[in-house]
């Protein structure tokens, strides 16, 4: 060793690495401005519009609190608010309790088939929302297949799903996975030896769960409760499709009808109502951030042991497994089958055998007119939008976590913010934003790209949530090593960090593609004839009673979703999708 007289050390010193042509700081500012502009920007004209006495495009408007007074003095608004809170409260309680129970059963007990349950219970969150709702209506709605079948064959009255309780049950099935994933992640983080210790100290399994496991889950429960409450406050699909028959109005549908049925177009009172909802959602987001901070206290050290001590359920193994199967079959599987069946019959009813009502017409219709256009539009904006969103979020995640840009700490919050903002409010926000931005805004307003931007912003948090855990796993020393050997921020990002992020980038693209394809609520204020997307066509066709065509469109979404998730899971181990829990 000592004999080496290195030429390396003796060699002439190498040239210093060159400084990059474009300063990293300029790029980082650019990304920050683009991000904040897209996420927060649309709410500025909305806020402005909510304080005017007439729509922004009409000259001569003056500052007034009138729109707020109008909304807050409308008894219908308060009625809708009461319904909304009742709905959100029931959903939150049921989804959080259910999600925690499933998480404990799946991770800590010997429930048969627990691994499959853990995956299947996520389906309602991943499947296209509108399709699932239509499937539920076809099966469990008034006149639905099983509703009628139970009534005529067994004389059992099933729960009416067009009531507040019934609607919140459906929302529970959709949002239970959120609580499930948060709790499962928390359980995976906690050290199973904490529970082992309680057992060797003499506690029975059930006692262990109630006195050790559940208290450790408390932050996860609070965290998912606030998120689920926020999400169900802003839910549009279920109230719109189910609430109308009994005229059960929610804040979201109240705003929607006031917008579409307004005597004077684009009333400022809707902007005011949207601002109120946005304020509530934002307040809840801040509350949640405080709770997340508290969660760190509960992260137990050395939680890598994931061999999870199994609590034996004994006699209850099979009854619980059966309950699980029934939940999955009646809550998800049969509604999706019903949706598929609806798409190939003239009407779905247990009174006449489906093969006698068989028809290809619904599917044939998809190849023509507005359906074909909507499918093409959706596919195009999903593809382009997924690429653009993934690129922006990759860049923004790099700046947020791998740079010394001094506003970087604001970026995770900005990227997660749209998760807490109701989709319809993003829609109204962009409507006003396009109206006040002149030629560019007009062009966006009259093309599908305006809708694409709204969808991208709305779903951007998912891209970040997929990206962040991978980024966090890439040791910071890897890019410090690159900087120390002379690579600029650009080069380090391009050659070290982005290649290591590749699986998350693909996962983000796949997830963005299906989320944008299946999204609908931001578009209800933006779509026009010619710029319709699948979601908006489904809503309007449903309201006109063309269920078969809605079902066919929904099945297209279901098929694409299943294929993309399947390929994604195979290729990139989309375990990352499980990361959605931190939303």
């Amino acid at each position, binding site marked *: 060793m000592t004999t080496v007289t290195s030429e*390396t*050390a003796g060699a002439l010193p190498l040239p210093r690495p060159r*400084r990059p042509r474009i300063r990293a700081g300029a790029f980082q500012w650019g990304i920050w401005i683009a991000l904040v502009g897209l996420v927060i920007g649309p709410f500025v004209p909305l806020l402005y519009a909510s304080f005017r006495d007439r729509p922004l495009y009409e000259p001569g408007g003056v500052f007034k609190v009138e729109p707020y007074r109008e909304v807050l003095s409308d008894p219908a608004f308060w009625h809708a608010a009461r319904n909304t809170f009742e709905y959100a409260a029931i959903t939150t309680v049921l989804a959080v309790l259910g999600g925690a129970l499933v998480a404990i059963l799946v991770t800590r007990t010997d429930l048969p088939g627990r691994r499959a349950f853990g995956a299947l219970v996520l389906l309602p969150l991943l499947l296209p929302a509108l399709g699932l709702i239509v499937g539920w209506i076809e099966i469990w709605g008034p006149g639905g297949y099983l509703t009628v079948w139970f009534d005529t064959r067994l004389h059992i009255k099933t729960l009416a799903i067009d009531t507040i309780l019934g609607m919140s049950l459906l929302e529970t099935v959709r949002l239970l996975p959120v609580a499930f994933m948060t709790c499962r992640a928390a359980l995976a983080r906690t050290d199973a030896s904490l529970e082992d210790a309680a057992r060797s100290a003499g506690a029975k399994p059930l006692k262990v769960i109630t006195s050790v496991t559940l208290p450790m889950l408390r932050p996860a429960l609070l965290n998912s409760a606030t998120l689920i409450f926020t999400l169900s406050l802003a839910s549009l699909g279920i109230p719109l499709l189910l609430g109308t028959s009994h005229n059960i109005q929610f804040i979201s549908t109240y705003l929607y009808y006031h917008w579409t049925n307004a005597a004077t177009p684009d009333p400022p009172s809707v902007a005011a109502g949207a601002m109120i909802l946005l304020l509530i959602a934002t307040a809840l987001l801040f509350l949640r951030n405080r709770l997340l901070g508290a969660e760190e206290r509960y992260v137990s050290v050395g939680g890598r042991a994931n061999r999870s001590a199994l609590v034996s359920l004994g006699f209850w193994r099979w009854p619980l497994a059966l309950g699980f199967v029934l939940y999955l079959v009646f809550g998800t599987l049969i509604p999706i089958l019903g949706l598929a069946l609806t798409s190939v019959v003239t009407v779905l009813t247990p009174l006449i055998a489906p093969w006698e009502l068989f028809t290809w017409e619904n599917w044939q219709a998809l190849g023509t007119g507005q359906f074909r256009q909507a499918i093409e539009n959706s596919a195009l904006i999903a593809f382009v939008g997924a690429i653009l969103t993934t690129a922006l979020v990759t860049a923004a995640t790099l700046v947020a976590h791998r740079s010394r840009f001094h506003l970087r700490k604001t970026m995770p919050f900005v990227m997660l913010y749209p998760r807490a903002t109701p989709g319809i409010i993003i829609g109204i926000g962009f409507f006003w934003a396009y109206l006040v931005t002149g030629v560019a805004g007009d062009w966006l307003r009259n093309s599908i790209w305006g809708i694409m931007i709204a969808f991208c912003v709305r779903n951007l948090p998912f891209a970040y949530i997929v990206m962040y855990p991978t980024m966090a796993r890439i040791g910071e020393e890897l890019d410090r*090593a690159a900087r120390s050997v002379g690579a600029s921020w650009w080069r380090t990002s391009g050659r070290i960090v982005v290649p290591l992020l590749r699986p998350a980038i693909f996962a983000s693209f796949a997830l963005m593609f299906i989320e944008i394809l299946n999204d609908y609520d931001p578009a209800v204020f933006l779509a026009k004839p010619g710029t319709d997307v699948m979601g908006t066509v489904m809503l309007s066709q449903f309201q006109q009673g063309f269920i078969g065509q809605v079902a066919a469109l929904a099945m297209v979404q279901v098929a694409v979703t299943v294929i993309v998730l399947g390929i994604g899971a195979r290729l990139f181990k989309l375990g990352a999708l499980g990361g959605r829990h931190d939303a």
Partner: protein
Amino acid sequence: MPEIHVEKLVKHFGEQLALDDVTFRVDEGKLFTLLGPSGCGKSTTLLSIAGFHSPERGRIAGGGEVFFDAERRVNVAPEQRNLGIVFQSYAVWPHMTVFENLAFPLKVRRVKRKEIRARVAETLELVEMGQYTDRYPHQLSGGQQQRVALARALVYSPSVLLLDEPFSNLDAKLRERARSWVKDLQSSLGLTTIFVTHDQDEALSMSDSVAVMDRGVVQQIGVPEEIYRRPANRFVAEFVGRVNLISGTVTGFDGRSVLVEVGDAGVVLRATATRPPKAATSVTVAVRPEAVTLGAEGTQVFNGTDTFVARVHAVSFLGDHYEYELVAGRLPLSVQAAIRVPGENVRVHIPPDACAIVE
């Protein structure tokens, strides 16, 4: 002239003071060690030199070039400092082969392809990894990855080498080998090196000089022998090696040593010192267990000075030595001895050079 000057660095993390007036100088070609417990600020200091942390105050210069100067708002980007660094995790890029890992710093410097190949091959030979050129990091052992990390930090002839706990992920046997190997490499290349560790053995055996840090403050700087034998304060004495800390009362000064009465059995220790301690009468004396000599109770060796009798409380055998727990009156004393001394009581001899007054 790759000489490193670190002057008066101050840095907070939130409320917490991470670096408090950290100052030292590293001479050209020397291996300088920052030693301390975790959270003492040693890594923060190293990362500040590398450019990954910006202190609030202070100045860092290397080889006549100012890297950082809070007052003059100088802060050279990490990639422009031309330093080599080996991280605790090695940070070998997992998606690149060994060759690509080493070629990267050269590509960044627009070195010609032919020269890249030559330099990479030569540097890999230097770390004895020549036959692993096309392997990916996951195909290498921890020790091999560490060599690659070191080669990557050397391939572009940096002016200074920084090592951030590079041995802590190796097992004990390998660690000892790696230690002497890195030391050999460093001295044969004559590389100015700053080394961060919490392991006193590493620090003492490898360094030309050592800075002991605690809570963001440099407690003592000196050559290893000085740090070990003449600890500046209680913290250094306790952190570096095992030590008996004995409190006592100053009773006099004889020109070469301070007389300290300890315990309740009338034992007086002489501690070598050039000047008498300040007015303080109560002091603490640090005595290393292996610096104490034992004899049978009846022997009159040691010329009768600096000696007293103590009772044997416990003895344990540790292979190459015996570990004694002694008590003289109420004064407990740990002693490491090569031989077993018979009897319930033993004669203890503590030479003045073995006593350091630490506060």
